[in-house]
C-alpha cells in the first residue's frame, strides 16, 4: 500500500467543481482548494505506479485540469507504527 499526494492545478472558476468530482474517485481524498486553483489530493493505492496512472487519468479526463504535480509518495509497509507524545 502506498500513500501519495499531488497538487492538481485547475482553471480558477472550476476548482471547487473538480475537487468535488475528484472526491468521488475511489482511494482519493481531496483536502481543499488553496490559492484559488490548487487542489491537494492524497491517494492510497496498492501499487506505486498508480500515482503515475492516476495523474495521467486526471489530466486526460478532466478538461479544466491544467497540471498535476506529485509531491509525496511512501510505502505503508516500510516502517512499523510510529509513536510520538
Amino acid at each position, binding site marked *: 500500500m502506498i*500513500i501519495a*499526494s499531488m497538487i492538481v492545478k485547475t482553471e480558477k472558476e472550476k476548482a471547487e467543481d473538480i475537487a468535488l468530482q475528484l472526491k468521488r474517485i475511489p482511494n482519493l481524498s481531496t*483536502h481543499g482548494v*488553496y490559492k484559488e486553483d*490548487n487542489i*491537494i489530493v492524497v491517494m492510497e493505492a496498492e501499487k*506505486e505506479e498508480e*500515482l503515475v496512472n492516476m495523474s495521467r487519468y486526471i489530466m486526460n479526463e478532466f478538461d479544466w485540469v491544467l497540471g498535476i504535480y506529485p*509531491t509525496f509518495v511512501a510505502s505503508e509497509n516500510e516502517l512499523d507504527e*510510529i509513536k510520538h507524545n
Partner: protein
Amino acid sequence: MSISRRDFLKASALTTAATIIGVESLVDNKIFAAALQEGIVWHKSVCRFCGVGCGVMLGVKDGKPLGIKGDKENTINAGLLCVKGFYLHKVITAKNRLLYPLIRKNGKLERASWDEALNLVAGKFKEILEKNGPDALAYYGSGQAETEESYLAGKLFRGFIGTNNVDGNPRLCMASAAGGYISTFGADEPIGTYDDIDYCDLFLLVGTNTAEAHPVIFDRLVNRKKKSPNCKIIIIDPRKTPTNKIADLHIMVKPGYDLAVLHAIARLLIKDGYADEQFIKDSVVFSNGKDPISYDDYKKFLEKYTPEYAAEQAEVQAEDIIKIAKMFGESPTAMSMWTMGVNQRTAGVFLNNLIHNIHLLTGKLGKPGCDSFSLTGQPNACGGVREGGTLTQLLPGHRSVGNEQHRKEVAAIWKIAPDKIQPKVGKHAVAMFEAAAKGEIKGLYVLCTNPAQSLPNLNKYIQGMKDAFLVVNESFFPTETAKIADVVFPVAFWGEKEGVYGCTERRSQYMAKALEPAGEAKWDGEVIIEIAKRMGYAEGFQYLKTPEDVWNEYLKFTAGKDMDLSGATYDRLKKLRGLRWPVPNTNHPGTWHRFTKEDPFFPKDKAGDKRMYFYAKPEGKAVIFARPNKGPEEPTSTEYPIALTTGRILEQWHTMTMTGQIPELLRANPNPYVEINPKDAQSWNIQNKDKVKVSTKRGSLVMNAKVIDRPRRGTVFIPWHWPESLTNILTNDAVDAVSKEPEYKVAACKIEKA
C-alpha cells in the same frame, strides 16, 4: 499518543503538498514532517532530465538516496516537480546500475579491472592515432554530461589527440536553435529569460508540447494566463496535445509546411502597421541568406506569402493566420517558444530565423515579456555543449574552430602549440557515424548518451558502431550502445558527483555530490583524465584534481566573452540557485536581457540612443532573413502517403536509460504505440489496440494502434522511447544544411494491419 504508519504518511503527504503551495499546514503536521525527515540530509541540485533546470533537493540518509523534493528557493520551479523529476532518486539505485568495467572478449562483454580497461582504451586509441591519424578517432558527447566532463573531453580530443571530430547529441535536438540564434543575432542562446514569462501577454508555441516535454514551464504559462486575463496562447503544431488546454488558437499545420505561415505572419505584421519602424531602422538589417537586401526587397519577397497561399501550403485556414498576425501585432508583449518541431527539420535553421523575424519586425525583444525563446531538451546542452565547445565547429566560450585567433586563445590556455587544433571543422554527429560505417573512423568514445537508439535511420549506422573500437561511459547496463561496445566504463550517476549544469535561460547551477558512486563507478572526468595520462598527455591533465579545478580552468575561456561566467565561481554557485550569464565578476547578479543596457557588455558609446545593440554582429544589427519556403525532405507519396512525426510523452525521457529504471513510470506506458486520428483509423479500417505495421523507406515496425483525436488527419505520431521498438529505424537522417540536425520530425510512411 500513537499513530499508525498510514496516518503518519497521510499527514506527511498533506503537509508536503501544502508546503509547496505555500499554505499553512492543514493539521498539526509539522511534527510528522519533522519526524519523517529526521536524519535526512538534503543536498541542493538540479533535475537530471529536461532543459528547464528545475531545482531539486536530494535527500540522503545513511549514505542512501531517500527522496527528492522540489527546491522551493529555486525561482525556476519554486518547489514544483514533474513526475519524472519526482522519481529521480530511484534511478540512482536502479537494479541495472553498471558497477564495474566491461571489456569485450571473444564476442562477450566481461568484467575487467579499471587498469585493464583504461590501458586497453589508451593503447588502442594511441595505435589508431599513430596508424590512421587523429581524424580516425572521434568523441560523441551529451547534453546530459556536466560542463566539466564535456570540457575535459573536448580538451583531450581537440587539443591533445588533435581532431575536431568532437560532437554530441545536442546536434540531434538543438543545433538548429543554435544556428538560428547565431545567424540572426550573432551569438547563441536566448536574449531573455524565464522572467519574461511573468510579463508576457501572448505566447506563440511552435512545434512544442510544453505540457508534456517541459511541464514546469507549462505551469508558468498557466499561472501567467490566470494572472493576466488578456494573456493569449497560440499553438502552431500538427498535433493536439495536453498543451491545448490553455490554447486560444491552434493551427494544425501539415508537418514540414509551416515556413510559409511564418512568412505570411511577417507580411501581415508589416502590411497592417504593426512593425516597429524605429527599432528596424536602429537595430535590423536584411539578408536573402547570401547577400544583404533592403527592407523594400524583403517586403517584395513577402508579397507572395498571402494568408491564402500560406494556408494552402500548410493546409490550415487563412483567417486563422490573419488572426495570429493580429494577435501578435496588437499584443504589447510576446514570447515565442519552440522545441523539436522546429529544430528537428531540414529547414530547422530557416524556421528559427523566421520566428526571430517576427520579433525583430515588431521590436518584441529585449524588454520584459518579450523574447524569441528556444526551449532546450537536455539539462546541460546549453552549458556543457554549446558553451563548453563540444559541437564540432565550436571551441570553449562561444569560440569557433574556423577562427585563427580563437584557436590561439584556446591553445594558450591549454599550453599547446597553436597549430595542434586543426582549423578545419570535424564531423558532425550523422557524418561521424557515417564515417564509422565506412571504416574511416576507427575509434569512437561515447559519453553519457545512447546513439544506437537515438540516431535517425538507425539500421544504416549500427554496423559501423560495431566495427569501430567503441568505448562507452555509462551508468547503466545494458543500453543499446553499451551492448555493442568494446569497453564500457561504469561512471558515477547524478548525485554521486558534483558539477555544473547550464539550462535554457543561460543559468548555470551547481549540483552537489551527495553520495559515493555505486560499485566501482568513477566520475567521468576522472576517466577522461586517466585515459589522457595513459596516452602520454599527463602535463595537460594531471593538475586537474577536482571538478572545481576543471570549472576554474573553463572559466578562463569565458572571461570577456558574451557568455562571461567569471562571477560564477563554485563558492558562489553553491550558495545561489544559479547565475545567468553574462556574470563578469563575483559581485554581479547576472543578466536578464542581453544586448540591452542591462547587459554588462552593452557598448553605450556605439549604441547611442538605440534600445538594443547586437554587439556580436558587425554593425550591431540583427538580421531578418528572407529564407526560401522549404518543405520536408521526404514529402508523402503514393507509396508512402502518410506523414510520420515522432516525439515524447510525459512519463518517459529519450531512450529510457533512466526512466526505464523506474517501474512506476515504465508501467504507465509499457508498450510502444502509434497515434492515429479516429477518422483516419476508420478509413484505414484500424481499431484501437490493433497491431499495425508502420513502414518507411528505411524499415518497418509493428506496434499497437492508439486511435485518438490528437494528430491531424493524414499524420501519425510515434513516441520514440522504447528500446524494444526502435522508432529511429523509421526516421529520416537527412540533415539541415547549416545546423546538420536530422529531420526526425517528418517522414513519409504507410500503415497496414499487422
